[in-house]
Structures are given as C-alpha cells and as structure tokens.
C-alpha cells in the first residue's frame, strides 16, 4: 500500500472548474453556464490509484481532460509533482505532458486508423525528439512485450486488432514517455468481461513495475473498487464523497453514494423485497442546477437546510470526506486532508 500522507502527493487538484457557456448570442451577450466540473479538489499520491466514479454527465471525463489540459480549465489549479500545470504556457506545457499520459475509453476511436501499431507507439518519441532510430525501435519492441503484444503485430493496422489488443496498444503508447501519472478515461468500459479482466490485471501489474499513479475514471463501481486505493464520487460536477475504496463501499456517508451502491443489481435484491430503495427521478439539467445541495431533489433524507445551503466537503472519519449536511463532520481542505480554517 502506498504512503499517501507522509510523502508529498504527486497530483494536487485544487478547486478545478470547467464551465461552458451555452446559448450565447452572436455578439457575446446572454448565455447560460453549464458547470460541467464545479470546483473539485483531490490529490493522488505516488504509486496510488484514485478512482473517480459517477454516472454519465457528472463531469468525470471532463475533469480528466481538464487536468491534462486537453480542454482548458475555467478555474482552479492542477499541480503535478510541484509544477503548476494550469499556469504553463505552450512550450513548458509541451514538456510537462511527458509526465501525464492518458488511456481513452474507445479502443476503436483512440487510434489513428491510418497508422501502423509501431508508428502509433513510436510517435511520442518523434514528438519529443528522443532516442536514436535504433533505440526507438528497441523501445517500441520492449513496450509491445510489456503490454503483451507480439512483435509480428507491429506492422499491423488498428482495425486488425481486437478491442482488448487495441487497448493494450493505447497503454503502450501512454507508457512510451515514462510518465508518472496515467489518466484512464473509462479504459475498460467498452471491453468484454474476460478481456476487461486482462486489461485490468495488466494495469495493476504495470503500476507495480513502474511505480505509476493512476487516475481511474469509470462508472462501473465494481471495477473501480477493485483497482482503486481511494475513490471520489462525483455528482453534477462536484465530488460528494471521498475516502479509501473499502470505506466508501462499507460505510458510505453520502446519500447519493448509498443510493448508487444500492442500485447495483444483485441477487440479494431479488431474494429480498423487490422494492429496495431506488433513486427516484432523473438527474436535473446541468444548465439549471437546483439551489443548495445538487442532490436534494432526489434525496430521501433532504431537509430544509439542504434546499438552501450548498454542503461543503467535510471530514466524517479518518480520511473520509462527504459533502452532506446530515453527515456531520468538520470542514476540511480537500487538497491535503488537513483541517481548514474557518
């Protein structure tokens, strides 16, 4: 288990936001803010896996892209190994990209169909002018071996690979620059169950071999639980609960997390009463978030305070944070877990 408290964290995200303005008039007037990501804060230690989980539209994928600056954050800061990524201009950002790489969800769309597998994995070296041609070839071959692809597949095109193999190719590409952090945006969601297991095991093994940190973005709770050390639960652009993986699953503090866990289909639900607690209604439109706690319209425990006041992330146990008025706890600085002032 990695040391998350003693050593300085590798990635620190502080009040990261991404807003889109929709419906703006021709000359800039009007428009409504779509708060895809609304002030999230968390940190990831070295060699640690942080799972960011939530349903569609909660903003987890946008958060991942914002951290990588594939889309520009509207507010907040991201620090990778002490360097403030969000403040970098183009050239220094280019250099820092080497330290944070990504694996994408769609194994069919994340590879250029016109490039060979070897060319895809080799491209990072070209971009950063690393290594001699011979060394590049050696490194590409080594990466192929590391992810379990055969050398005879190097000259094949993406459409000749299966979904699982393409995902391995994406992983090989992500490892080429020897990053410290790898952000996986739903990396196994599009794969069959048995293939999913292969890729998950590969990612775990690589983490141990290369001391990688993962930000694992997914909607599948079981997968996130298996692979993550700590988990953040997102709803409507905010983190509503954050704790060690087992804690979130054993003692969820936020009503949304509890509902999420209760919604997972199980034989227990079948054997017990069919009418187990089911979340009512639909998520509200992100263009018109409710006042107060974003979850209150669907929350079975909502009280008057929930309708009026936005709950902050509070410490409800050792390292366990939840944003709910009813969960109690002290206000906290989520980036470091230390007590906040005021």
């Amino acid at each position, binding site marked *: 288990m990695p040391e998350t408290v003693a050593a300085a964290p590798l990635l620190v995200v502080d009040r990261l936001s991404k807003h889109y303005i929709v419906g703006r008039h021709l000359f800039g007037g009007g428009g409504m803010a779509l708060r895809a990501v609304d002030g999230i804060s968390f940190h990831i230690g070295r060699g640690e896996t942080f799972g960011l989980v939530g349903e569609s539209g909660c903003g987890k994928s946008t958060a991942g892209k914002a951290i*990588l600056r594939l889309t520009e954050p509207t507010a907040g800061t991201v620090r990778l190994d002490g360097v403030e990524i969000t403040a970098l201009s183009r050239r220094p950002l280019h250099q820092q990209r080497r330290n944070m790489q990504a694996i994408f969800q769609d194994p069919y769309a994340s*590879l250029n169909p016109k490039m060979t597998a070897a060319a895809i994995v080799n491209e*990072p070296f070209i*971009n950063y002018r690393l290594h001699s041609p011979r060394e590049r070839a050696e490194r590409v071959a080594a990466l192929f071996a590391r992810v379990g692809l055969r050398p005879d597949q190097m000259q094949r095109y993406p459409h000749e690979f299966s979904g699982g193999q393409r995902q391995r190719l994406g992983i090989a590409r992500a490892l*080429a620059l020897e990053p410290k952090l790898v952000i996986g945006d739903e990396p196994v969601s599009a794969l069959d169950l048995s293939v999913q297991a292969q890729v998950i095991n590969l990612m775990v093994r690589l983490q141990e071999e290369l001391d990688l940190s993962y930000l694992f973005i997914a909607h599948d709770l079981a997968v996130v639980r298996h692979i993550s050390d700590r988990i953040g639960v997102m709803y409507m652009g905010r983190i509503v609960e954050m704790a060690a993986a087992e804690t979130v699953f054993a003692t969820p503090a936020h009503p949304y997390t509890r509902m999420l866990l209760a919604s997972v289909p199980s034989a227990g639900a079948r054997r017990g009463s069919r009418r187990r607690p089911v979340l009512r209604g639909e998520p509200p439109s992100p263009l018109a978030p409710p006042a107060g706690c974003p979850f209150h319209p669907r929350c079975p425990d909502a009280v008057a305070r929930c309708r009026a006041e936005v709950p902050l992330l509070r410490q409800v146990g050792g390292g366990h944070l939840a944003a709910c008025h009813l969960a109690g706890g002290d206000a906290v600085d989520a980036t470091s877990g230390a007590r906040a002032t005021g």
Partner: protein
Amino acid sequence: MSGAAAAPTELAFSRRRRRLRFASRHLTILVGGTLLVLLIALALAAPAITPYDPIALDVTHRLRPPNAQHWFGTDNYGRDILSRTLYGGRISLFVGIAAALASSVTGTAIGLAAGVFRWADAALMRVMDGLMAIPSILLAVAMMTLVRPGVLIVIVAITIPEVPRVARLVRSVVLVIREQTYVQAATSIGTRLPRLLLHHILPNTLTPIIVQATYVCASAVLLEAYLGFLGVGIPPEIPSWGNIISDGRTYVQLAIWIVLFPGAFLGLMVVAINMLGDGVRDLLDQRLASRF
C-alpha cells in the same frame, strides 16, 4: 456430434455465383474504370494511331459523311473528324486532370485551414460562398476575356469555381476528425499542430477528397467544352471537343457527324469518370462500414 453441421456449413452460393455477386457490387468501378482506361489509351495513342493530321486541310473532301477513308467523316475544311476527336481527347483529359488536381490541392489547403483555425473559418468560408455564388461558366468567360487565351489560362479559369466545393467538403470532414479521440490522444502525447495536420487529420480526409476529385474532373472536362463552344476556351487552332462542336454547330443539319462524334466521346468520358467516382466512393464506404 452436431448433426446439423453438414448442411449449414456448405456454402449457399457456388463459386460462380459469388463471382457474379462481386462483379455486380463493383459494377460501377469495373465499367467506369474500363471505359476511362480505354478513352485514356485512345487519347494517349492518338499521335500513333490517327490516320490523318488533325489540322490538315483537305478541301476536296469536305463534309463527307463517315466512310471507309474517314470513319467519322470530315468537317467543312475537310479535316478528319476521327483524328480531331482523338486529339481533342488529349486536351480534355489534360485540362480535366490538371483542373482536378489544382482545385483539390487548393481546396484542401483552404478547407484544412478553415477547419483547424477557428479564427480563419468565417472569413475563408464567406469568400468561398462568394465564389460559389458566381456561375462557373460566367466566371470562366470573364477571366478568359481579360487574359490572352491559352491552355494554362483555361485550366486556371476552370479550377477557380471548383475550389469552393472541395474546400467545403474538406472543412466539414476536418471538423468531424478534429473531435475524434485519436486526435485528442495525439495531443496528449505531445503532437504539435503541424504534425497533427499532416499525419492525423490529412490522411483521414483523403478518401472524400479523392472521390470529390473525380467529380471535379468530370465537371472540368465539361466546362472546357462549354468554354470552347462559346469561343472563349482553347484557341481555335488546337482541336478540343468544345472547339470541334463549336465549328460544327452551323452544319448540324448538313453534317451532323461533326458534332455527334466529339459529343458522344465527351458524354462517354464524363459518364466514365462519374461512374469511377461513384464506384470508388462505394468501395471505400464499404470498407469503412465493415471496419466498424
């Protein structure tokens, strides 16, 4: 043992039927391609196979209908129509292909710029819209009257009205490709704009560009004929289908063969190019479809 194995695993179609199915599916490419290859071969071989010099006058044999010495007959100057038609094909092909290439390259560059650089998009596209608003013949005629005629000028005059078509197509394809995950992935591994354009975006726009280029080629061939017919195209001393038809226009009732044969060849060439374009598009679409 699964008893049902014997019957279903036999091919429902015999080998012969499969070949027929292949041919019928690729009919447009086969027919169009063959026809085009034939026309190109004829045009290229013209100096070798034409019986007469296309510009040689022979007044004693003027306005002869098709006969043993002149398969396509002669015009009012006694020039052999067959020779003139084949030589005319050379001009048409040259102009058609050159215009297709020039407009494809220019249109692609503009479309890429508009698709990738948001700030340039509006300006470029409005210019394209403006060009498209002017009928191509009118534009070509206007240009030709301003400048001294020649083959090169005709190519330029035909290219310009075709550029917007290619540019709009490329722009729309680029807009789609830009959002593809592999472009984002390339950015995440540090790929910068020039390489992004050249290696990621451009290769994936080639398919529609190639298809469009064939249509532009057909359009160019026709446009050249129109210009020739109107008398503002290729200079009259060079035989081009437009010129030949233009010359023969006053003799339509007397000697229809002057107009008929070049016209037929023109029609065949355009049909062949269009069929080839359709076939290539269907083939590439099929492969795309089966891939996903």
